[in-house]
């Protein structure tokens, strides 16, 4: 026990003496949370739309007015021909084109099937799809209104769809992003700092000096784990405070649940970091290895894309991804107020992960080669 205390004292002394690292540890989360949360915005507002009005009727005027009033669209200049509009798409000056053909109003009054054309720039598929969705909604509503006004009798069966968004009623994208950024942050601390630290000692030669002392393997590993566990937890707390102050992010669930999960998660990640470092000889190697894992974990975890949309094999693969569980837990706790009873499967998985990666790390760490 005394040995472990002195190992910890030494690690903390070294961490606090490394001013660059220390600053990085506290600047990193602040900058990430300010820049990334604001920048990585997937709200579909201000879609640039170009309208070609070949009809010039009161109906087409109504349509243009409706689009102008919508918060989703930013109506640009009207262009005379479809070719001009397509040219704008090609030059990336507009996101979507609405072509209103000649005789639209006429056709609709004669109850032909009137149609408008929507041309969307689908380089960004999500954006194109959403633009198409909003736009067709507006068009449909208009023709409905038009008919209703026209017929005056309500023959149409009026089924109204009312949507309500749960857990994030304002569809605030920041509420969705911030937990994701926090998860990445905690992971970087856990994976990079721990693995780099140990490999650095190998490079400098102090690792060998430690191996020739009677320090036991488990003592050494605990000495390396605990400091980064503490730092990781402080980072999360810091991130949550920033999230609360800057974005007023909701905290519906229990702090205890979130932090106890984070502790288990960090143990799993630190175990992985130590495992990687015991397999590497240089900081470059371990850096590249950690980066490889980090990237896969992040992209698969559902920080940026919904896991439900992934192919089945990818969803299955996510069972091996610790970030996936952390993602579920942090969003659940913050936004939904999920408690331990809702999240126990995640707890079981991450505990198994932690036990697995730590035992592998201890097993693969050799004092005698």
């Amino acid at each position, binding site marked *: 026990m*005394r040995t472990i205390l*002195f190992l910890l004292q030494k690690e903390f002394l070294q961490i606090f003496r490394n001013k660059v690292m220390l600053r990085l540890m506290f600047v990193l989360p602040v900058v990430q949370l300010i820049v990334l949360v604001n920048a990585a915005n997937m709200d579909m507002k201000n879609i640039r739309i170009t309208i070609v009005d070949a009809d010039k009727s009161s109906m087409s005027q109504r349509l243009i007015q409706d689009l102008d009033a919508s918060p989703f669209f930013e109506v640009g200049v009207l262009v005379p021909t479809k070719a001009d509009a397509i040219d704008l798409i090609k030059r990336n000056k507009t996101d979507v084109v609405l072509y209103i053909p000649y005789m639209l109003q006429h056709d609709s009054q004669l109850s032909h099937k009137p149609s408008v054309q929507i041309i969307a720039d689908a380089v960004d598929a999500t954006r194109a799809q959403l633009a198409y969705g909003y736009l067709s909604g507006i068009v449909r509503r208009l023709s409905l209104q038009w008919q209703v006004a026209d017929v005056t009798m309500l023959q149409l069966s009026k089924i109204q769809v009312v949507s309500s968004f749960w857990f994030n009623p304002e569809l605030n994208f920041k509420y969705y992003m911030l937990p994701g950024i926090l998860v990445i942050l905690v992971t970087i601390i856990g994976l990079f700092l721990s693995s780099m630290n140990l490999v650095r000692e190998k490079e*400098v*030669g*102090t690792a*060998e*000096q430690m191996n*020739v*002392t009677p320090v036991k393997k488990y003592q050494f590993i605990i000495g390396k784990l605990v400091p980064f566990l503490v730092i990781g937890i402080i980072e999360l707390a810091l991130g949550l405070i920033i999230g609360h102050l800057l974005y007023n992010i909701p905290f519906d669930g229990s702090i205890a649940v979130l932090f106890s999960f984070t502790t288990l998660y960090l143990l799993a990640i630190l175990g992985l970091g130590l495992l990687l470092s015991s397999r590497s000889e240089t900081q470059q190697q371990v850096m590249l290895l950690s980066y490889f894992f980090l990237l896969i974990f992040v992209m698969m975890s559902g920080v940026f894309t919904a896991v439900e949309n992934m192919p089945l094999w990818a969803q299955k693969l996510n069972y091996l991804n610790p970030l996936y569980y952390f993602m579920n837990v942090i969003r659940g706790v913050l936004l939904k107020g999920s408690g331990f009873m809702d999240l126990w499967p995640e707890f079981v998985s991450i505990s198994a992960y932690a036990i697995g990666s730590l035992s592998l790390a201890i097993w693969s760490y050799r004092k*005698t080669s």
Partner: protein
Amino acid sequence: MNEPVISVKNLVKRFGNFTANDHLNFHVDKGEIFGFLGANGAGKTTAMRILSGLSKSTEGEVVVAGYNVNTHPEKVKQNIGYMSQKFSLFEDLTIWENMRFFAAIYGLSTAVFKERAQMLLNKLGIFHEKDRLVGELSLGWKQKLAFSVAILHRPSIVFLDEPTSGVDPITRRQFWEMIYQASAEGITVFVTTHYMDEAEYCNRVTIMVDGRIEALDTPAALKKQFAARNMNEVFLTLARPNNQ
């Protein structure tokens, strides 16, 4: 009868096809200064790493401080000090912090640590600099400090792997004075070196060539055996036998 503190029987270490240590046999007595000489790549460091429990031998029996290195490497580690070729104190800790850390690792109580550290630093004449970062010290001071740290827990043997390489002649002399002092206190010193003048300071010397021990005796006896004026000539005769 002096009980040997190190006894090595038929030590073999192979890395793939390469034999780094080829059937080494020797023993070291208590309090002896035992020089381990050889050209670069002769297998000195490999043998020393096996003796100190950092590396496993392929064959043979090695007993250090009364324990078999292969079966009880951790018992051996409690009883030895080790100073590697790479400088291996923590450069971002102070002199005092380094000493406190290693003292604790070897289970010294705080009181004992303070007394010994004070004594060692006073002997070196750098007690007033105990709060300086080790990284700021010159190589000579670093090496002397590393040696002091290696014997802080009063091991029965201290292994020194080329402790004086790159160090100026004055510091080398001071370093050897420290070695003699440790030896006088009953610590066995096992030292590898390139400097043949240092070989003269050892009680006994082995010369390794290509993984084998080619000579083992006192410097005086070796010089007589090879009809040489100094250890340098002995070494050259052995290490480059076909060289004219």
